[in-house]
């Protein structure tokens, strides 16, 4: 256990850490067993003297609230789509695919409940969507006034299943990226919050894979694979969501220069093999057109 490294983690999460208000007990709680094992609480005492330290907790709660916001977004997207059409008219999501999308919707709803409980336990108020009127604890997280998933009639998702799928794929890929973008705020956490967010991110990746494969089977013109190839988007109006996905540099290493025996790794495989994080600012800019 490298104690210097733990301090480094906190410093990375919050560059102002050493100047900041600090309360030793609070910090120690955040550090958890790592600090206990390092067995240098006195050293800590001298570093964080009379002030209160709360930024790490704030960072974690903020990251979780941002992810919660995205979960509400997705749940409402799927809930609306599953409720569009009827057996007597035409269902937006056809019978053959409804079990898959119901499972996906269920995962998003479970994430909302899990995140609300986790944030609440931290003593922070969980995010609730703008214009949501029901009781956020007991009510269904469905809130139609908060979203316009057509982006003011730019995407005709309710009339055309393929358009819905193109947007669904883009949202899921973006969620994978958004969650990974929040990990740096969770590194100082020594309980299972970091792990929980990772576990949610792989569920979002499963969703993305499912929807991409549906589109592939339906003959989508971009011939999507279950994974993201370079920065390929379903169509031109969605390319911004895929910027930087063609990155092939990992930990400063250009993966395309590596070989395994005679086997080489091309840029396509190198880009597909790694999903790429997006910052909160970028994600907010991308989804703003769907918010009311």
């Amino acid at each position, binding site marked *: 256990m490298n104690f210097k490294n733990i301090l480094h983690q906190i410093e990375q999460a919050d560059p102002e850490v050493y100047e900041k208000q600090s309360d030793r007990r609070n910090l120690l709680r955040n550090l958890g067993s790592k600090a206990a094992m390092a067995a240098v609480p006195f050293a800590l005492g001298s570093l964080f003297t009379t002030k209160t330290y709360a930024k790490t907790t704030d960072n974690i709660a903020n990251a979780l609230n941002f992810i919660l916001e995205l979960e509400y977004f997705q749940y409402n997207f799927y809930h609306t789509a599953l409720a569009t059409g009827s057996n007597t008219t035409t269902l937006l999501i056809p019978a053959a695919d409804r079990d898959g999308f119901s499972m996906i919707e269920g995962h998003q709803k479970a994430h909302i409940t899990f995140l609300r409980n986790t944030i609440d336990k931290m003593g922070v108020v969980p995010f609730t969507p703008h214009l949501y009127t029901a009781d956020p604890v007991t009510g269904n997280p469905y809130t139609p006034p908060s979203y316009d998933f057509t982006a003011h009639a730019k995407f005709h998702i309710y009339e055309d299943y393929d358009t819905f799928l193109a947007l669904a794929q883009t949202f899921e890929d973006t969620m994978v990226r958004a969650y990974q973008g929040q990990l740096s705020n969770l590194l100082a956490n020594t309980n*299972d919050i*970091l792990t929980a967010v990772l576990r949610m991110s792989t569920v979002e990746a499963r969703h993305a894979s499912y929807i991409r*494969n549906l589109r592939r089977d339906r003959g989508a013109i971009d011939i999507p694979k279950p994974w993201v190839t370079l920065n390929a988007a379903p169509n031109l109006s969605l390319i911004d969501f895929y910027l930087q996905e063609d990155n092939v540099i990992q930990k400063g*290493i250009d993966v395309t220069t590596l070989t395994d025996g005679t086997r080489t790794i091309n840029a396509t495989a190198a880009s597909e093999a790694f999903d790429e994080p997006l910052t909160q600012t970028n994600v907010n800019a991308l989804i703003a057109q769907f918010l009311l």
Partner: protein
Amino acid sequence: MYYCTLIVFTWGNTIALSSLFYNFKACSKISPLLSIYRGANNISMKLNMGSENTQVEEAGLMHNVSRRNFLALAGGIAGVGMLASSCRRTPPDTVYVGKGDVALLNFLLIVEEVLAAVYTQANLTAYYGLTKSELDLMADMRDHQYAHKVLLKKVLGTNAITDVTTVLSKVTYADKTDFLKNSILLEDLAVAAYNGVAKRFTDTNYVLLTAKMATLQARHAAYSRELLAHNSLADTVIVNTDGLDRAMAPIEVYNALAPYIQTKFDISNLPA
């Protein structure tokens, strides 16, 4: 010296010879012997690495080659047992994965090696009824595992384990259902391995790196699941009532992977 010669003649196999001298390396009492054959030891490392490739490239001979290597190794060890057992602390056929972050990265490398070997073989002897689309994506899955593998090796540098011999006979490659069930088991396990390893890293830069690889494994898992049965991207065993994918301790994953691995690893310092 008599012993060595005897074994060479008995097995007629450089791998037996090299593994014999590898055993001697740990034994200070016979260091004069070692100095003579240091060159042979270097060759043995290369041979071990090469045998993995042989196994997958010569599809039809795969199991034979694998079994022959194993017998050769076992013979070498048995032959030298009397001579060397009194002076080495760990079994010579055991590969030490290291400790801390090195152990965790080597552990992920083992996971990736198994997947790479299975997909390499699957591409050579694909299941019946495979479509063009499935063939293309199966090649992708193989290439992704290689990308992960080479990056982990590069990051580990000289700490990387070099000789992972996998057991490919676990899978009936010609049978779509059997192949997919194995693929699903391994991909779901890889997801659980990546999710479980994150909080154990001391250097948190590795968390940010491996998270990017975890989601790719999840894409693979969901795809193989879809090929087996539509709308089965996950199930209640894999994703719990909180909507969370699995995260497993390294040792749990390692034990689940054991049937696919022939190499014996010393994981005594793998973070619990």
